[in-house]
């Protein structure tokens, strides 16, 4: 276990280094640099070149990377071209809403998906299993923005029960703001996850050790919780890490639709205004978060079922 964790953590460090290079290269190779983007035709060529000097854009790419990277290591993500403030401030201001949104969704998704998955798995091919499978299969085929647009139209515009957009105030103090966004995010994640838990449950239920435990008269409740669930959870946890990607995509869309001032909104704003340092900073933070989630999922899987091989 310990050597596995060490090996896996070492891989994460390598991934982190490669990712930061990648983020920088992807964003700096873009056609037209920040100086061009910031002032189109209103400045004379001399002014543009002075600005470029000021922003350090006239230096070679490697030097710029080293400057940026050494800043990143000390927590300095650079300066926004639009607001003029530090990028880390933008990150700090926007991370809260996204975190609340994601955690609230996970708090509903995980118990729901595990319960549904076990419910389906223990009744393989029964009527309930077939009904839930069909519904989840259909639900997982609907893009989240379609669900969002329809839900907003029905529950906010037509019935007026729930707010359609974020209207200020904290997400924590007025949880009613979270109802529609979380519902939208639930759809696909619950479907993907519960299917994995179902498959894991079925495999575990048919495994020799469970059959033997049942023969020995282990009570059903104990059998499910102690013997089936840990093994059934492995594909679920791995899927959860992969779902992180789907969930993040969903969060981007949901934040855009409900005008929640979170990470995604900041990122889309940065993209639209070509604020490269902001995009770099936000991208890096998100990539690190995704990395940590994957690392965590692998470690949890290894803890649950210690036979998991390193990579592959």
């Amino acid at each position, binding site marked *: 276990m310990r050597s596995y964790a060490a090996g896996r953590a070492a891989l994460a460090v390598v991934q982190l280094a490669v990712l930061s290079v990648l983020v920088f290269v992807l964003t700096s190779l873009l056609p037209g640099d920040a100086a061009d983007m910031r002032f189109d035709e209103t400045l004379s060529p001399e002014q543009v070149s002075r600005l470029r000097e000021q922003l350090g854009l006239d230096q070679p790419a490697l030097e710029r990377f080293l400057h940026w990277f050494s800043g990143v290591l000390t927590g300095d993500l650079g300066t926004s071209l639009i607001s003029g403030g530090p990028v880390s401030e933008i990150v700090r201001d926007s991370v809260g809403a996204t975190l609340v949104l994601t955690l609230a969704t996970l708090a509903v998704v995980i118990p729901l998906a595990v319960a549904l998955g076990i419910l389906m798995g223990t009744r393989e091919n029964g009527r309930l299993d077939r009904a839930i499978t069909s519904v989840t299969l259909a639900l997982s085929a609907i893009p989240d923005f379609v669900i969002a647009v329809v839900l907003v139209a029905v529950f906010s515009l037509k019935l007026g029960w729930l707010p359609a957009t974020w209207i200020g105030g904290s997400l924590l103090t007025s949880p009613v703001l979270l109802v529609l966004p979380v519902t939208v995010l639930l759809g696909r994640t619950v479907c993907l996850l519960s299917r994995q838990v179902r498959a894991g449950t079925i495999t575990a239920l048919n495994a020799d050790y469970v059959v033997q435990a049942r023969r020995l008269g282990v009570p059903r409740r104990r059998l499910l919780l102690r013997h089936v669930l840990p093994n059934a959870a492995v594909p679920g946890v791995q899927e959860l890490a992969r779902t992180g990607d789907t969930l993040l995509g969903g969060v981007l869309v949901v934040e855009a639709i409900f005008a929640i001032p979170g990470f995604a909104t900041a990122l889309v704003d940065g*993209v639209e205004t070509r604020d490269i340092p902001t995009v770099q900073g936000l991208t890096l933070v998100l990539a690190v978060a995704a990395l940590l989630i994957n690392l965590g999922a692998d470690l949890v899987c290894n803890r649950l079922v210690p036979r998991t091989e390193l990579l592959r």
Partner: protein
Amino acid sequence: MRARIPLAISVVLVVVPLFIALFGPLISVDSNKAGLPYSADGVLGTDGLGRDVLGLLLVGGRTALGMAFGAVLIAYAVGGLIGLVAASTRHRWLDEVLIRPLDVLLPLPSLLVISVVAVGWQASAPAITLAVAMVNVPTVARLVRAAALDAASSPVVEALRMQRESWATIQLGYVGRAVIGPVAADIGTRITLAVFLVASVNFLGLGLSPTASDWAVSVSRNREGLLLQPWSVLAPAILLVSFTLGFNLLADRLVHHTRRLAVSPV
């Protein structure tokens, strides 16, 4: 076996949007003729810019589905080749060189990569298609490698090698064929995911221009008008959902089919 939704329904769900995407542009009428916004003129009314919804619908499928298909095609051309070579090589270092870098790229959030690409090449369909493809390459390569590894280490390949069959005959003829089953099932879900991804990018306004006729862009642009003129949003949304739902059902059927083949006694 459990009863599933009839095959015919899934096929119809896929074929209708596909047909519109393929042949719609040929029969479309002039869609730029502006009328009143959200009016009831025409079969399906007009959208927020006063354009005929039916006309937009006929041309909007090309980007919505075409970009996704293109992305999956490229992902398989690149990732599939990497996976096949990695699985069939007898040099362990080559396998490592090909697969390790992909391990590093795997956890990159896909929408993130695409939005970064979109900073530079906004509204460019080929650039978004390429970005969606690249996001899929690591998973495809690993899947193909895993599927091909069993076949590549079988006695059959050993025998073919001893008969001095060419690399292409062995890899494409035997190993490639063994991979088809899992790949076909994966393509089904991957195309759905690609449609999702392309649609989300376009919906967020990071992809095509906000006035494009694309189905996802239409849903995004007309969403305020949903109650005024529902078809401007519902029609493109229904076509998108119909396609992904149908493909999901077909892929699910295929997964069960291959799984049944795999467990059936030889």
